[in-house]
């Protein structure tokens, strides 16, 4: 692996951003990183870090200078063997990225989702009715996990059995973008079994004929992608489609439970549900970090970065950069959260963002109708992941309307 010989001395921090302490609460570290400079050396891993909105946004959009094909985790595929076949979307660059992306963008685009809207709103109503039989419950398991698991696997066309594998598989995949620390080790024993299950679900014959999965295979029939690409594209849905949404919904519910005046606003104007969800994604950044790799000797903020250098982009830090956002630490529905980088930006921007927004809109709309007030009812617990900012437990108490 090349060392990062950069042309000018950079500010350097020795903290391990993937240590349990930082993952538990990354905000103080991210602030130090942001204030240290536009580009910072992280000596613990000998990598470069970006934490300001402007440089993160610029790097995300400049796919020509900062590639994804060498992996969007710490591992550099130029020198290291990936733990599984690289994703055709997340871990690919143009021109290889073009066809899979075009196919999936269409299948998960807003107009394609219209046919799901009514059903998902009805599903959200039904789930909320059922959950509100109690006034105290854990918002992570009963809502944030339950709703995506209720609607998404059906939309993909997965069989019923084995769906419980989706969350641990996604959790491991997102841990694996970080260094090989204890979080990765903890997931390792089940990798073979979970991967085998996921891979089996990607086959055409496993997928219901009217779901996203079947549409991917239809694209292969038209020659828009190859038969070899189709299962890997289905795999992307299964890897990135559940955990991220679960944690984004949990972030939204936590935000409301701790900001009662914002809940009142949502109840007054339920059409703010979409804005509320994006504001929560900005505020908590369920996907905290991704890497890029310099394709060549490239310049960032006056520093020449040698080809092959891994660059860690702190999406969460950018989403709270005071240079870009007024009062960034406030969860505020009157703010315009547009252009946050919580879904990434540019060519690789989250292809499932419209799916996530629709799920959130359905769930928040149903909750806003039935819940007058939501508050924390006990100690909360974080779930640590190298990439994701997540909750293990959010005990809440609700007052029904």
């Amino acid at each position, binding site marked *: 692996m090349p060392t990062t010989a950069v042309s000018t001395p950079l500010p350097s921090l020795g903290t391990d951003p993937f240590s349990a302490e930082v993952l538990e609460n990354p905000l103080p570290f991210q602030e130090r990183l942001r204030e240290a400079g536009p580009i910072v050396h992280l000596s613990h891993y000998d990598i470069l870090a970006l934490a300001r909105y402007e440089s993160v946004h610029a790097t995300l959009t400049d796919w020509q200078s900062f590639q994804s094909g060498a992996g969007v985790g710490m591992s550099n595929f130029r020198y290291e063997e990936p733990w599984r076949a690289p994703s055709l979307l997340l871990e690919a660059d143009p021109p290889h990225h073009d066809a899979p992306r075009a196919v999936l963008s269409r299948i998960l*685009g807003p107009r394609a989702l219209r046919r799901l809207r009514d059903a998902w709103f009805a599903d959200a109503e039904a789930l909320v009715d059922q959950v509100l039989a109690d006034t105290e419950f854990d918002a992570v398991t009963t809502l944030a996990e339950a709703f995506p698991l209720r609607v998404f696997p059906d939309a993909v066309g997965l069989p019923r059995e084995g769906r419980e594998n989706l969350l641990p598989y996604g959790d491991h995949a997102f841990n694996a973008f970080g260094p090989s620390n204890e979080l990765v080790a903890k997931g390792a024993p089940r990798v073979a079994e979970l991967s085998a299950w996921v891979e089996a679900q990607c086959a055409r014959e496993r997928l219901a004929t009217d779901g996203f999965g079947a549409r991917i295979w239809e694209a292969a029939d038209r*020659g828009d992608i190859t038969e070899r690409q189709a299962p890997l594209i289905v795999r992307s849905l299964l890897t990135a489609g559940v955990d991220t949404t679960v944690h984004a919904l949990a972030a939204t519910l936590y935000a409301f439970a701790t900001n009662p005046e914002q809940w009142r606003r949502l109840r007054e104007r339920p059409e703010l549900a*979409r804005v509320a969800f994006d504001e929560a994604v900005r505020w908590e950044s369920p996907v905290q970090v991704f890497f890029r790799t310099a394709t060549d000797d490239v*310049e*960032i903020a006056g520093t020449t970065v040698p080809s092959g250098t891994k660059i860690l982009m702190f999406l969460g830090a950018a989403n709270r950069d005071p240079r870009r956002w007024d009062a960034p630490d406030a969860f505020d529905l009157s703010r315009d959260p547009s252009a*946050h980088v919580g879904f990434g930006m*540019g060519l690789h921007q989250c292809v499932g963002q419209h799916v996530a927004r629709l799920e959130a809109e359905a769930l928040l709309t149903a909750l806003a109708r039935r819940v007058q007030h939501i508050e924390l009812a006990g100690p909360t617990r974080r779930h640590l992941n190298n990439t994701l900012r997540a909750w293990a437990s959010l005990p809440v108490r609700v007052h029904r309307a």
Partner: protein
Amino acid sequence: MSAADTAQAPAGPDTATAPQARVAAKRTMADGVVSLTLRRLGGGRLPDWTPGAHIDLVLPNGTTRQYSLCGDRWDPYSFRIGVLREPDGHGGSDFVHDELHEGDVVGIGGPRNNFPLVPADRYLFIAGGIGITPLLPMVAQAELLQVPWDLLYGGRSYSSMAFLDELRDYGDKVHVTPHDTHGPLDLDAWLPAHPGGTKVYCCGPGPLLDTVAHRCAGWPTGWLRTERFVARSTADGARDRGFRVELRRSGRTITVPADRSVLQVLGEAGVQVLSSCRQGLCGTCETAVLGGEPDHRDSLLDDDERAAGDCMFVCVSRSLSEHLILDL
């Protein structure tokens, strides 16, 4: 290129505006063919595109015409198009040839791609005349992917065939057939009875496309892909003046001046519309249209969806009618 340069690319809420470009270069490529190099007004990245994509070019005389991108997508700062002078071009191509000069400002929409390059074991590219333009980035890409390919390029005469110098580097993969000296393209010799792993991309005048389509009639769908090169002019009379937008649900009307986007004006009026890319790429700002005729400038809608006129992306799209009604 550096991240420092790209940092100037429009990103914030204040910078999103109707996409405009300056003609940075205009060159004669062949008899009756000029190329234009366009750069974003005020600098910064242009939207990403893939081979086969075209843009809408909104000319200062109000004509909107569509042209395939034929430059290098690894250069995010410029678009290149090739323009053939067409006798019946309704004022579009004549204007480009005679009245558009380096330094002039044009509007742009898209890019959109109805003719994407999909994976194959082998490509056969067939170009007729100016139909070469979308195929130029395709051959570059096939080369990059190390997929074997051939290009059949027919035209009236050598002197009318553009971009021959750029194609010379590809050696014997390029088969140039000027009609006046070599006769018509020998399609029978090149088109197999069954495509196997070969995908055929054909762009050019109607008769060429019809012949190729007829020849490949028994092929599975998706193995022959064509783009008809016609002087499409979908949005004559693009507005260079402002327009009014009625917000049906809130019962308000706002005025969008020529130099502001609908999204910007909505934001200033306190109407929250969620957006993200602000380039017509991501789909976040989709808004339902209840009346009036949108001037679509996004990269997302296909021709049918555009024609339906029931939704628009307010970060880039505008209005052809003086009055537009949105479901806001």
